[in-house]
């Protein structure tokens, strides 16, 4: 987590299962194929998540991703490397990122 940008990262709701209440964190990196998420909630590598967040004018709901790698930082926060699973959803993400990128 880059200290200078910590509170400007994108807040996101993380659903881990239908039975459990959702958790939350911040997306510290986002590309059409993968992302990095910072949260103080602990989750194991390999777990599948559904992420809900806003990007510019677009809202994304239940974007499915798998935790590829989990690492705990010195403060006790977890940094998760995520891979998006649904090609249809990644196409929408790509369009939103392209819209926000400087031309």
């Amino acid at each position, binding site marked *: *987590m880059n*200290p*200078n940008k*910590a*509170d400007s990262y994108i*807040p*996101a*709701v*993380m659903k881990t299962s239908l039975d459990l*209440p*959702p*958790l*939350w964190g*911040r997306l510290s990196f986002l590309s059409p194929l993968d992302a990095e998420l910072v949260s*103080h909630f602990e989750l194991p590598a390999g777990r599948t998540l559904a992420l*809900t*967040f*806003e990007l510019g004018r677009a809202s994304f709901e239940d974007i499915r991703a798998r935790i590829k790698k989990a690492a705990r930082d*010195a*403060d*006790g*926060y977890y940094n998760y490397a995520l891979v998006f699973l649904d090609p249809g959803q990644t196409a929408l993400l790509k369009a939103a990122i392209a819209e926000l990128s400087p031309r």
Partner: protein
Amino acid sequence: MFNTVQIICASEKNRLILRGIFKNLGADAVFSNDLNDALAVFEKARPAAVFLADGEEPPAEIQLRELRRVAPFIPLLVLLKRRDATRAVELMKLGALDCAQSPWTEEELRPLYRKALNLSGTAIELDSLALRRGRRSLAAALALFLGFAGFAGGLYYGFKRYSPHAQQPHSFYLPYAHPTGIIIKKDSVLISDWYSQALYEHNPKTFGIKKVTSLTDVTPVALAASQDSLWLAGTNGVIERRLLDAGYTRASKTAAFKPTPDSACFDGLYFWTADSRTGAITKRMPGDSLEELKAYKYPGQKLAALTCDTRFLWAADPGLRSVVKLSLDDPERIISKTQLPQYSSRTLKITALAAKDGLLWFAGEDGDRALAFYTDEPK
């Protein structure tokens, strides 16, 4: 590490839980009842982060907005009363760094506390390439600067060493012998004396007397001031509220309190009295009757005089030879003890104390003379 955190929480029960948690985390926690209370002490407390309890008045959204207006870069964390990810994300969009779920535990709050403390301040990375490029001119400038600084330092040292200079005194002998109360006004220091039954108004720089007001029907033992009133405690246990006009006209008076208070102060919200003989500290409503809210036992060795500001209670303790800082929320907890060098005089008896603008003012008797002095407020 700078570890002061401010916690905005009205519930006494939750404060108790949070006090224990933050103590275990090693934080210096400053509690505030609500947003107004928090903003009033914000400047003085200078917290590294602010934690606010959700579900109180005003709502967390308003508290976040106002706190960000006052301190845009301070980490703000919301303590949710239940696990609600949608609300957490909404609050994070409004400026919260993160939200903690209920139940609040040390394990839950530790990462948030650590992250918040690591985020406060601004990290700077130097562009070393540009630095290398300008190294030669920098070295020349540095040598020039050092030469000039050495010359200026020598000149300054010589001037300080060999020129006589007037020192601003921090201690003043008083032309009366039995001071009992002290309050600091904008441009004067007001001291009561029980023997001469008078209020003396002094110039704060020279301590020359500007005005004397005779108190024919009161023998004053303590003084306190609020924004628009002067409070005068008498030997009979009655506390009078007087107007801040030329003659200090009496506006109201209380019933006689037992034990007779000999220290009084107003923290901006509550009125406090103390009795040095029993060590009893009493929190009161600031109305005309000064109704008692709660009584506490002074936690130090011997209470000589007590005062307060908007953040702390301060006590002079001859047993500990110290100034003792107490929490306004829990006066039975000592925050710090700081040795007072003036207590090296075995005959010094401090009878009055006042706190204002980062200074602590003392009045008392030393042998057969009375004196007033001030020190910087201890950390």
